[in-house]
């Protein structure tokens, strides 16, 4: 049977058993690797979350006597709840800022010119920097002793105190740094989508006298909505993994003002050696991200279908 015939048969739901088995056999190595690389660690994480595991007490690694203990502890742990709220503030602010900034810059760059092509590359630089390097750049910018930013503000008569040691500004200082690093990602996705929008409806709208805003609102945004949703999902998931910036800039402080859930789990696991508890937090975080992603993509699908 030719490949084409198999494809046709597959469309009709009539794949012969021996071919189906051959496909499965062919897929098997990849599935095994996938399972080993992704599912096994995830499963181990979940199993660990059911124990009070700590490397300092080897017997605790296999203690399943109270499997829900870590989950119940988390729900009654005010620091966990506080970290989730800080996480929500950071994620929402950074995702919104990155999408808006990315959209704005993409609209500006959505023209054919050599200069704009070169500019696109420049805008991508923050995104390709290793996260720890980006964090160090912002550490310098936010340290009054050595910061050109603080010096410039001071010399122009507008001195600003350290932003990362002030509980009212520390989280937003991190959000600014995160937005600087990752808005090029949303810009790239949106720019690619904008370049796929057909010219005809835009030209027709222009002939009818539509303003730029009307073209944006009624033609461009609906056309690129699915790309924006993809960008939001990517950035949302990534924002929950935010770590280097917080680690380098504030270590979760001052106090716990910037201690997001991810960082809280990190301290529980690696400063305190509470692997079981940290695993439970990680499992809940993963589940939260999964549910949130599903909800956003479903909501977006509905709208697009409408």
């Amino acid at each position, binding site marked *: 049977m030719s490949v084409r015939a198999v494809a046709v048969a597959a469309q009709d739901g009539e794949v012969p058993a021996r071919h189906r088995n051959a496909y499965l056999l062919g897929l098997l190595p990849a599935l095994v690797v996938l399972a080993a690389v992704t599912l096994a660690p995830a499963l181990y994480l979940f199993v660990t979350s059911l124990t009070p595991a700590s490397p*300092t007490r080897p017997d605790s690694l296999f203690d399943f006597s109270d499997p829900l203990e870590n989950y119940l502890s988390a729900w009654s742990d005010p620091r966990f709840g506080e970290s989730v709220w800080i996480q929500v503030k950071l994620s929402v602010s950074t995702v919104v800022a990155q999408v808006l900034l990315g959209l704005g810059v993409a609209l500006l760059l959505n023209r054919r010119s050599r200069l704009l092509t070169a500019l696109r590359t420049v805008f991508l630089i923050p995104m390709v920097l290793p996260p720890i390097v980006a964090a160090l750049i912002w550490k310098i910018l936010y340290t*009054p*002793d050595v910061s050109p930013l603080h010096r410039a503000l001071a010399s122009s008569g507008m001195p600003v105190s*350290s932003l990362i040691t002030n*509980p009212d500004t520390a989280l937003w200082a991190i959000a600014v740094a995160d937005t600087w690093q990752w808005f090029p990602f949303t810009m790239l996705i949106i720019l690619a989508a904008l370049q796929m929008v057909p010219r005809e409806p835009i030209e027709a709208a222009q002939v009818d006298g539509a303003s730029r805003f009307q073209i944006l609102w009624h033609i461009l945004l609906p056309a690129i909505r699915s790309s924006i949703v993809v960008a939001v999902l990517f950035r949302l998931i990534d924002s929950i993994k935010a770590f280097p910036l917080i680690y380098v800039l504030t270590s979760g402080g*001052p*106090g716990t003002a910037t201690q997001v859930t991810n960082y809280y789990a990190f*301290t529980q696991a690696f400063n305190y050696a*509470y692997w079981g508890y940290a695993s439970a937090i990680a499992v809940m975080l993963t589940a939260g991200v999964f549910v949130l992603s599903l909800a956003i993509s479903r909501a977006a699908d509905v709208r697009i279908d409408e």
Partner: protein
Amino acid sequence: MASSRRPTRRQFLKRSAGLGAALTLPLAAPALSQGKPFQGQTLNVSCWNAPYPKLLQEYLPEFEALTGMKVNYDTPGFLIYNQRIDLELSTRGSAYDVLNITFIYVDRWIRSGWFHPLGEFVRKENSTPKDWDLDDFLPAARKIMSDRSGNLMGIPWTCDCYMAVAGRYDLMEKAGLKMPETFDDIETVAKAMHKDGIAGFVGDNRHGWNFPPYLQGFGGNVFRKAPDDLMPTLDTPEAVAAADFFSHLLRDYGPDGVLSYTYDQVTAALKQGRGNYSTEGHIFLMPAGDADSKVAKTVRYSAFPKGPAGHFPGFATHAWGIPVGAKNKRASWEFIKWAMSRQMMLRAVKEKGYSSPSRRSIIEDPEFKRRLTLNGSDVADIYLKAIEIAGGSDYMAYRIVNVFPQVDTLIGQAIERIVSKQMSASDSMKLAQRTAITDLRRAGVKL
């Protein structure tokens, strides 16, 4: 034939270094005479990036030439080192042959049986010559690096003790002030000097290290009686008063952004004359007297001041140890023996200006004394006295219990909340106490 070839430049340098080391180090003779029993082996060694391990790195070619071993050596940052090695040790892995035993992890790492006892190497003459002299290492440091049965688990390479520095002592003299001897004096000096772009007080963000000397000076402590009674005592009236005082120094006399200051920023602020007074581990204060320091001619050192309840200078030590998973422990010991020999430590002092030796004979060496007498301050004497105070009492016991890392973090958060005015000292320390109890119970501590 290989032997007829001219040596490469690298081979020539290695052989020259080997010859130099053999001539300068008496320890070399037995190793060479035995025909390099560890020839061809590879040692993986790691320590956090403190001065001694970093300067030791420069002498490694000598060790490699001497023993024929290859050394893979890395010195990551303090936090990264501890997290990485905590994980490595917990799996009893064999990735490392020699590791640093970090002070605050002493109990956790040693009590869990993650390090190999060194007695079998130290006391045997075929492993270690007598003149290597284990007893020369300060007893306070050896005691900390031993398990509860007294088995030595690590050879201390540093002793860091808490003391005080004033970079602009010239300005203090003009104002009729002397080096503070009490906590009240610190307040007076910090207040008087906090002007004209100079911060009156500088401290780094390791509050779990910097705060306890004040806490104990006020009559409080971290635990009720470590290591036997680990009930935290962070909300006692003494603890609240100490937190209030310490946070006030940072908030009202510290530089802008003091809460994000790392220890190297403190050193830089002192060297540049941007901060006048600091109480810190002496490792980070000594560079203020370096030739490239703007305050080299005006800096003064003193013992850490007394509080209302007495004098409790902090003390820390770190040591080289052999992880239980190490494949060839004799080779590991060969490295430690070389790195911690009297000759090597003396070279570090003389050739690299190392200021935190752990051998008494080095601290009392006239060369060390001469180097550490700065503008009339006898730092070697301050150093030795602080170590003796710490060694003669158990007040540092709080620091080496296996749950201290938890409380260390909570102290840091509590001080940050007070300095940044999120909470009063009383509320913040009460919160720290409640959280500490929860965390310690999770660790299995019966309270």
